[in-house]
């Protein structure tokens, strides 16, 4: 794999292979994904075993993001119970995987082969297109499946064909591409953001440690970007989960009685969405303040 720039910064766009088991290559991003899953599993298992009606500190900490996300999902449509687990699961997985990449040692501790750059043991999972594409394919299958389930296969194809029937030969491919572009944009958005974040952090560290005169900057300039990455990790996890939710909600929304009625129906279906977070927000924000 080619290097990005000179010898100063080494960036690899694909995950590096650590070892292979019978032809199955285990990459460092897989290690990152497995560690993130293990953290989530351990938290779920521990809190489930020690949960009480009056939540303790740890239980509240684990429940907070779940409740917050579930509140938003609960307002999206009347059938939210069937996909709330998927949306919250996507959110938590991406959040933990993103924040795992900011732990010291991740991306800096690894193997060094002769004459090659460092191969880190752990790479943030979302900095590998395979991980984000996998999540997007899951979300894609779910929202297409919902479209087919609610409207039937014929209804779904009719919806893709568009409203004036004589325009169908033109609109069918366009709508098909727009459906597929959701898959591409979902995966590329997460991958691009996390990978660009990694490159940014590497560049900032390389620039501030390049010469002795700028070395004092190395103590706080990467820190600023570290805080920024914390924020981006949360926002990107939220964006992925909310977009998956929106696509599912759009697939469920009725379009049967013409375009105009469909729009109105969608509006009424979304109305609780506008109420639920608003109603829950003041209580959740005023509690810590």
């Amino acid at each position: 794999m080619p290097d990005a720039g000179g010898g100063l910064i080494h960036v690899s766009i694909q995950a590096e292979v650590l070892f292979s088991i019978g032809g199955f290559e285990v990459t460092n991003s897989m290690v990152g994904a497995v560690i993130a899953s293990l953290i989530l599993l351990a938290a779920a298992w521990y809190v489930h075993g020690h949960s009480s009606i009056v939540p303790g500190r740890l239980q509240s900490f684990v429940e907070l993001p779940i409740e917050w996300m579930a509140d938003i999902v609960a307002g999206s449509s009347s059938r939210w119970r069937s996909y709330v687990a998927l949306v919250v699961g996507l959110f938590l997985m991406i959040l933990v995987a993103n924040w795992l990449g900011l732990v010291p040692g991740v991306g800096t501790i690894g193997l060094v082969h002769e004459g090659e750059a460092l191969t880190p043991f752990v790479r943030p999972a979302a900095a590998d297109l395979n991980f984000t594409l996998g999540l997007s394919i899951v979300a894609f299958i779910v929202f297409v499946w919902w479209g087919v389930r609610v409207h039937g296969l014929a209804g779904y194809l009719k919806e893709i064909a568009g409203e004036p029937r004589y325009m169908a030969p033109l609109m069918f491919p366009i709508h098909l591409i727009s459906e597929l572009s959701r898959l591409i944009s979902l995966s590329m958005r997460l991958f691009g953001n996390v990978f660009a974040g990694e490159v940014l952090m590497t560049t900032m560290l390389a620039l501030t440690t390049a010469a002795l005169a700028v070395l004092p900057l190395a103590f706080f300039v990467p820190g600023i970007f570290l805080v920024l990455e914390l924020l981006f990790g949360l926002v990107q996890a939220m964006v992925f989960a909310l977009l998956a939710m929106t696509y599912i909600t759009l697939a469920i929304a009725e379009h049967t009685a013409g375009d105009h009625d469909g729009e109105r129906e969608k509006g009424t279906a979304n109305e609780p969405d506008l109420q639920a977070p608003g109603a829950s927000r003041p209580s959740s924000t005023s509690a810590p303040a």
Partner: protein
Amino acid sequence: MQGNVSALAAGLAMLGAIGPGIGLGIGFSKAMEALGRNPEASGTLFVPYILGLALTEAVAIYCLVVALILIFVG
């Protein structure tokens, strides 16, 4: 030589991030204006706001992807 040209092309591809940058600024300023007029609407605004910014930002991400392809593949 080819490496230099593709690096230049990658830099030029990132010029496409200008548009989304302006768009994000407009979106954010409008959201803040709406919030200033109607502070109780923060919960209502939140989800559409995040989604709007994410969809605007997708264009910049496409530029980034093109730039990355030019650097690493081209």
